[in-house]
């Protein structure tokens, strides 16, 4: 299983196009933010918002997009291997079939975590140069833990989605759809508060806004304290709700409640994916 996992990781990290396309959704969001989203946000609030606060806000959302798209891209190797007959070849080795499947999941998890950390570092470094922000190194352990939780959730989500995919040619279309949708659901292209009620409701049916809110709570905590101290409690709550920093679901959700919610999504996706895959997976190998 170790050799197989090494192979999966090598295939992902050795391919420049793989690396680029896996974070394309995140890069598009980043560029859009630089080009106009940032200015839109600055002008849309009646009080002054600092660059470092907005930068950390957008980084949070983009990290969620990264978690979604990179785990999808990594897990797609499973479909490619199946369609091109490689999985059949691996199946006739001494490695049991369940270990092969577990390895795809493990690699997707590892790739997603490392790409989140990589993208976080790149974006913080960029803003450190352009906006003179301070990189919050002290948050590293928290970010690592949250990136692990994100990767768990999104890996199982993508496993569920891919259990319905049989052909490699579907993968690129699916990648574009999920990449774009994740940007909206994580509230990167526009804050969740701007969306109509129905859209907000639909968004909250996915793990994306909770995942993004958790990142925002971690990355913006001190910045919010420093910079919004002049606002009233109501004003601050409204701002945090508008920007998707706090989410309400019959009242404001605490960080631990959101972590539990993400855990529930993880379990739900795992169960449904397991049922969806049970009949189709191994049975189709011989037709490759």
């Amino acid at each position, binding site marked *: 299983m170790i050799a197989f996992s090494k192979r999966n990781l090598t295939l992902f990290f050795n391919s420049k196009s793989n690396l680029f396309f896996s974070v394309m959704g995140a890069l598009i969001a980043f560029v859009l933010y630089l080009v106009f989203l940032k200015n839109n946000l600055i002008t849309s609030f009646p009080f002054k918002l600092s660059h470092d606060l907005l930068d950390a806000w957008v980084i949070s959302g983009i990290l969620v997009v990264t978690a979604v798209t990179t785990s999808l891209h990594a897990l797609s190797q499973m479909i490619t291997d199946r369609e091109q007959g490689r999985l059949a070849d691996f199946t*006739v080795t001494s490695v049991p079939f369940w270990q092969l499947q577990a390895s795809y999941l493990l690699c997707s998890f590892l790739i997603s975590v490392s790409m989140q950390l990589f993208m976080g570092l790149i974006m913080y470094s960029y803003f450190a140069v352009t906006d003179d922000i301070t990189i919050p190194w002290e948050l590293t352990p928290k970010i690592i833990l949250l990136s692990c939780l994100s990767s768990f959730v999104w890996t199982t989500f993508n496993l569920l989605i891919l259990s319905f995919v049989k052909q490699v040619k579907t993968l690129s279309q699916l990648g574009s759809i999920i990449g774009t949708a994740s940007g909206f659901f994580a509230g990167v292209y526009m804050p969740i508060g701007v969306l109509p009620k129905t859209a907000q409701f639909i968004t909250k049916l996915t793990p994306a806004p909770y995942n993004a809110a958790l990142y925002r709570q971690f990355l913006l905590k001190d910045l919010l304290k420093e910079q919004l101290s002049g606002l009233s409690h109501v004003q601050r709550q409204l701002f945090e709700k508008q920007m998707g920093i706090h989410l309400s679901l019959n009242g404001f959700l605490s960080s631990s409640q959101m972590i539990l919610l993400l855990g529930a999504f993880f379990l739900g996706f795992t169960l449904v994916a397991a049922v969806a895959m049970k009949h189709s997976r191994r049975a189709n190998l011989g037709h490759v």
Partner: protein
Amino acid sequence: MVEITIEALTKEYTNKLAVDHIDMRIKKGDFVAFLGPNGAGKSTTVGMLTGLITPSSGSIRFGKLKPGTVAYHNKLGVVFQNSVLDNQLTVQQNLKVRAQMYERTSQDVLQQVITELGLNNFLKQKYGTLSGGQRRRVDIARALLHQPEILILDEPSTGLDIQTRNVIWDTLKKLQKTMQLTIFLTTHYLEETENADYVYVIDKGRIIAADSLDRLKQTYAQYHLTLTPKDLQKLRVQLNKLGIAPSENKGKLQLIVSDSAQCLTILQRYRNLITDFECRQSDMNDIFVHLTGKEMR
């Protein structure tokens, strides 16, 4: 000594009976050819032999082992119809990854296989950049990494030029001897079955012939006699009198006779009407057409 026993093996899909109660006994060290026209059930049988397709009924036994188990996989090497190694990795990386996925393998075996198959010159090259023949050699090396006792090859030389095919077949014959391999192959090229110790012919999911090549030839032996006549009409009338209806092709008469004695009789009787002749015994191609009524290629 029987190595693999296949009994009443059947695979039924929703609307199709792909393999219908086939029986095979494959002896240790034998080179077995498995022939059949497209859609006959060859790939489904190979799928079941490799444990990738679950049979609807029947059994495959290799000693006490059954397909789909790790112990069975350890004794089985498979060369798939398509190249299944990673194009982005080098030959060496590919072989190393696959070798590490087996319980029984070593650096020595890896090196031996690389040398046997002559891969040293392109070990560091990416698999995706190799020629068709080079790829097939790597594929065969990959199938031998764990020193299997049986090697299954699913149409391994399809799409290769004649020189490459010959190299591959020479290598396989050598491996059969040096590694005491049992080889089971499906092929589209009937001349390749000339190397086989035993031949199974499958059509519409059923085994329609199973014998050694020599005995198949004896059973279905016919002679193809081509005569170049001095006077075509006259010779045709004479042959018709014997109850033979020859076909005509480019001024020559072609007839099929049952044995060499009949061949000689015709030649002696009509030697004054013939300027030249050609006589050849049925090959596997003719036997195949005779059995299935279909051309392979």
